[in-house]
């Protein structure tokens, strides 16, 4: 590679990474700012973190979001894995095309349409069968599960397509019952993909504002909904502190996951 060109490339790449990280770092920096004027430096302080811990509004929204995300991730992992198994192992069956469409469309569906259409569904259901009586954590969980199971199924499918079926066949030949074989052989083999899917579903659920705003009801405000309503009016220092907490937790999580999958990859290669 000739020198001047490689220097151009290098500076574009450096600009790209700076572009990705400067906004994030600036939020972290200003979260320690003592001044209420968020953009003027008034000295180091942890007061916004203290304000965070004292805010019942933020804490209860965070609790709701974590609950919704945990249930969503678990449901989506179970449903998404079953869908992936069926699409990968059942060959041709009636309704396969429809299933493929339903499981890949949520990946590219505008959130706003998913939100509106699910709200209409919940209202219609409430009229016809009286359920859901009120909208809130349950309806948000259902909505989040529906779009994140698509992501889980994509991840698990890519793992399944790289997997050898002969081990399962052998276990069946030795008289293993289907469910037993599934839990003893298949699940351990696709476990890394299921964990990755669970984490992705958890993150997607924790991140969603638009869909939750539609399908939630009075009294159920998720953390992103609360943040959104606050930041529509501009920068607030306590959101800087909250953002920093989230950024640190996510970064630790991603790094751990990266190390774990790396260890997983190398042990796979050895065996």
């Amino acid at each position, binding site marked *: 590679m000739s020198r001047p060109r490689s220097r151009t490339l290098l500076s574009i790449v450096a600009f*790209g990474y700076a572009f990705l990280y400067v906004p994030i770092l600036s939020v972290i920096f200003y979260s320690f700012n003592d001044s209420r004027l968020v953009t003027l430096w008034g000295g180091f302080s942890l007061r916004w973190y203290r304000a965070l811990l004292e805010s019942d509004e933020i804490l209860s929204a965070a609790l709701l979001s974590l609950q919704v995300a945990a249930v969503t991730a678990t449901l989506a992992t179970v449903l998404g894995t079953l869908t992936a198994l069926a699409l990968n192992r059942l060959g041709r069956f009636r309704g396969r095309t429809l299933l493929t469409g339903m499981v890949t469309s949520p990946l590219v569906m505008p959130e706003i349409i998913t939100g509106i259409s699910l709200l209409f569904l919940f209202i219609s259901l409430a009229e016809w069968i009286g359920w859901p009586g009120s909208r809130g954590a349950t309806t948000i969980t259902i909505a989040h599960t529906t779009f994140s199971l698509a992501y889980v199924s994509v991840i698990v499918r890519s793992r399944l397509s790289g997997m050898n079926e002969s081990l399962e066949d052998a276990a069946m030949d030795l008289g293993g019952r289907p469910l037993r074989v599934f839990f003893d052989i298949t699940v351990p083999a696709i476990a890394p993909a299921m964990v990755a899917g669970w984490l992705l579903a958890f993150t997607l659920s924790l991140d969603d504002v638009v869909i939750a705003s539609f399908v939630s009801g009075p009294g159920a405000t998720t953390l992103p909904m609360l943040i959104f309503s606050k930041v529509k009016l501009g920068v607030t220092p306590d959101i800087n502190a909250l953002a920093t907490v989230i950024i640190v937790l996510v970064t630790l999580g991603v790094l751990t996951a990266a190390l774990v999958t790396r260890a997983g990859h190398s042990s796979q290669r050895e065996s």
Partner: protein
Amino acid sequence: MFTKLRRSDGRRQWLRTALAVPYLWLLLFFLAPFVIIVKISLADPLVAVPPFTALIDWTQAGLERIQVTLDNYLFLFRDPYYAVIYLNSIKMAAISTLLCLLLGYPIAYFIARQPARWRNLLLLGIILPFWISFLLRVYAWIGLLSSKGLINNFLLSIGIIDQPLSLIYNDFAVYLGIVYSYLPFMILPLYANLERLDLDLQDAAADLGARRWRVFVDVTLPLSMSGILAGSLLVFIPAIGEYIIPALLGSADTLMIGRALWDEFFINRDWPVASAVSVVLLLILVLPMMWFQKIQARQEGGS
């Protein structure tokens, strides 16, 4: 033979049974909502004005007289406001996609050409912001761009400007926000494609005396077309319906369909028109979506 038949039957049987659960889930929570949204888009707007009672009225009325109206769609076509919004959303999404490509391609190209141990670290650097909340990343730009924000303060302090620039609450900020948020979606498929490219081809072209630029245009670029398409669609499709970015960084005049839809729904409370707007948006997106799925299917088949 006999055991083989029984074995695969047993496995298929339980999978079939188990599949019923996600299948019914998707029918109820993914397909049914679309049927409903299409139905509501064909409902009479006048009957359905206050949203809650409206739907009850409509379903009850629907049982007595099956009345379908295209008024909501005609309304969309007659009012130039909507045509302008749809076209403007497409334009903004297309320009953002191009900007993502211009920034993302060199980065993906660079990463794909690094030694393996560096590659993972560099990729992690691209993926990490994607895991950090989308909302918070868009929010971060408010602090940078506002009139008393970091960028303006910096430029003022070094004396390049003597008045703060208006960097936020305009279309510029929306473009910036979209490029920023969706850049990883462009880089990752491009990287996956470029990483698999045969370096020998480029070397051969270079050995035969081709200039670097010609090698890139004649060899690398055509071979990476599927990555370019996949990345572009992954940016373009969600960007068209984007709501958060224009809501936080745009002005009241930023015309994007996601925002118009939100207002139609929450502020005007005209559900039949909101439904019609959604259906038209979906129709606009059907082609790029099918294109994307075709590319995906081809890549899955290929690898």
